[in-house]
């Protein structure tokens, strides 16, 4: 056989939109040499619902349910980002109890979101059981949410001027019970994953995201904290009442998949601390200030950002004095975090691509909006 006939060539593979590990509908066009990845081209937009344009045709209050759908794993945080932006623009003072409830719910949702992440990340690596364990604990949080606001996924809990519902009877003992058992459950995930040699082989030194690249692609949230930057908006620019709580910002060292995993795992512990402090210090009083249905904010412009579980979520709202916003721009963390994937996953194997993609915690509705 002539040697020319034996030459190898690169080939293209469509990973997604229907692929189990793209966490939704992301299409990665991969050029591969055998199992090695030569280049990646993410194609986004399969879930584009033009939420920012819809916002221009809704009143400020009506847009809150839409924010739930930007990031369905962390709706509370998405709510929080939007209502703080609007309140900042209009100068609304929120009752203290409402702020406490907001922080409590946002942190519980951060735990729930990280639990979904740890679950899907474990399953990306082939470990199925942590998936169900993590969802078991997430269920407890969702039960608390359902008790409070009636929904398990799209909460519409926070409204402009406060929160829609006060916590019901029986919420507090349930929450305390959860806070008591949760740290043990996190240890359980650690036993299954953290030091498991197979897990270490799959994550240590894989998909290293160095600080310069992370800055260049404006990566945020646990993904950049994994690279060692101690940057958390809850600490750096405290919004709401985060300055009243005592918590740490876990950081990694090398920026590999394992570090990002560890950062999220520790963040769950820190969030548990915040929720504990919030429930201890929960003041009495009103839960919202009355904002009329056809409420008109003053003319103006605002930029406000919060720390969502996936990174910075920022709202840029321009108001022209009518009940509907003139323009809303949402900055979501997943979109920026996804951009860095082609850079850090090149020259890895396809199995690593799955791990790296999972470790960035990209959620596609947030990318496409």
């Amino acid at each position, binding site marked *: 056989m002539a040697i020319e006939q034996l030459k190898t060539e690169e080939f293209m593979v469509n990973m997604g939109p229907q692929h189990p590990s793209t966490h939704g509908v992301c299409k990665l066009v991969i050029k591969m040499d055998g199992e090695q990845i030569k280049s990646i081209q993410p194609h986004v937009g399969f879930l584009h619902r033009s939420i920012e344009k819809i916002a221009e045709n809704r009143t400020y209050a009506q847009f809150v349910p839409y924010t739930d759908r930007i990031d369905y794993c962390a709706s509370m945080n998405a709510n929080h980002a939007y209502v703080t932006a609007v309140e900042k623009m209009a100068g609304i003072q929120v009752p203290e109890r409402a702020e406490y409830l907001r922080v409590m719910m946002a942190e519980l949702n951060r735990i729930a979101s990280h639990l979904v992440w740890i679950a899907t990340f474990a399953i990306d*690596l*082939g470990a199925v059981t942590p998936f169900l364990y993590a969802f078991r604990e997430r269920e407890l949080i969702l039960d608390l949410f359902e008790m409070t606001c009636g929904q398990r996924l799209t909460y519409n809990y926070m409204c402009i001027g406060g929160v829609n519902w006060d916590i019901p009877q029986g919420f507090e003992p349930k929450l305390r019970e959860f806070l008591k058992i949760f740290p043990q459950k996190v240890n359980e995930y650690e036993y299954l*994953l953290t030091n498991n040699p197979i897990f270490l*082989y*799959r994550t240590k030194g894989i998909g290293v995201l160095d600080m310069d690249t992370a800055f260049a692609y404006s990566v945020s949230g646990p993904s950049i904290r994994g690279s060692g930057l101690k940057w958390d908006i809850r600490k750096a620019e405290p919004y709401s009442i985060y300055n009243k709580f005592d918590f740490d910002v876990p950081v990694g060292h090398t920026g590999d998949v394992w570090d990002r995993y560890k950062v999220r795992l520790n963040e769950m512990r820190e969030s548990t601390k915040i929720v504990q402090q919030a429930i201890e210090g929960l003041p009495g009083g009103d839960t919202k200030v009355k904002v009329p249905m056809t409420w008109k904010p003053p003319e103006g412009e605002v930029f406000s950002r919060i720390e969502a579980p996936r990174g910075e979520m920022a709202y840029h709202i321009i108001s022209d004095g009518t009940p509907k916003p003139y323009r809303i721009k949402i900055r979501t963390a997943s979109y920026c975090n996804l951009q860095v994937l082609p850079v850090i996953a090149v020259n890895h*194997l396809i*199995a690593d691509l*799955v791990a790296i993609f999972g470790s960035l915690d990209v959620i596609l509705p947030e990318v496409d909006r």
Partner: protein
Amino acid sequence: MLELNVIFEAVHRWLEGILPQGLVTLISALGTGGIVLAFLSILALFLVWWERKVSAHMQQRLGPMRTGWHGVLQTIADGVKLVQKEDLIPSTADRPVYFWAPVICFVAAFMAYLVIPFGRGLIVQDLNIGILYIIAITTFTVVSLLMAGWGSNNKWALLGGMRSAAQIVSYEVPLTLSILGAVMLAETLSMVGIVQSQAGGFWNWLIFRQPIGFIVYYIAATAEANRTPFDIPEAEQELVAGFNVEYSGMKFAMFFLAEFVNMFTISAIAVTLFFGGWNAPHPIFNFVPSWIWFMGKSLVSVFILMWFRWTYPRIRVDQLMGFAWKFLLPLAFLNIILTGLGVLIFRN
């Protein structure tokens, strides 16, 4: 005291009394084949159900509950469903290759049972090269998986097929070498001979003289059977479903059943080689029929394989190769050297 071979021998004698010799041979050949096939089919159905139950309870779920007592008939229902499914063949598939791949996989998985001793006298054919035959016949799996990957004309399937070829061929080496140690001690290649050499009590089992051999065998065999943590040819999260991504209906069912039969095969071999086969742990337990001991030990081993699967993540393909060549192979060689030295010192 129900030894099953008594029944089979009685039937055989009865047939000899009423039929000519040639016909008896034919009938007994077909009959044994049929019995083994039926037994394995039922066993595979049971194992599928059992795996679902084990995984469910490890994950605090219930698993199948509706069909029959705790869902025991679930696999049969699934099988009926799979038979009814449309048999899709991709338009660009290499049809003969695509068609024969599951058949070869299925047949290879079942052929191994020719020499597996289920109990005292309960073996289809006691070949004097039994263990060698099993190693040879189970390797056919790699051909079938490669055929499936190639014939589907799908890039994911091809990647899966290539992975399985690399994996199974690599792990074949430590697997065979790990068995050698046991064979050296038993001084026979016949499966029955190996079992008989371990008779008398659990202290005679080869596991105590071949711990390294057993570990190497078990890891390599798990890889051979494509079980997690070594299930990289399928790897749902990476290759969608690997080599069987294009298969549907009965063809998929054949791959699926073959996987479970293979799982039992490696457990049966492990029991035969290292855990005394059908022998009771102590002569005082000899009143329990030998086939119960064999099945019990094998099912414990199957459970451990399931346990691994529902605990561990999947290893990466290049690490898998490195593990085979850099760790298991030297270990297997070390085992052979130690065994050889042991034989030299203690036998003389």
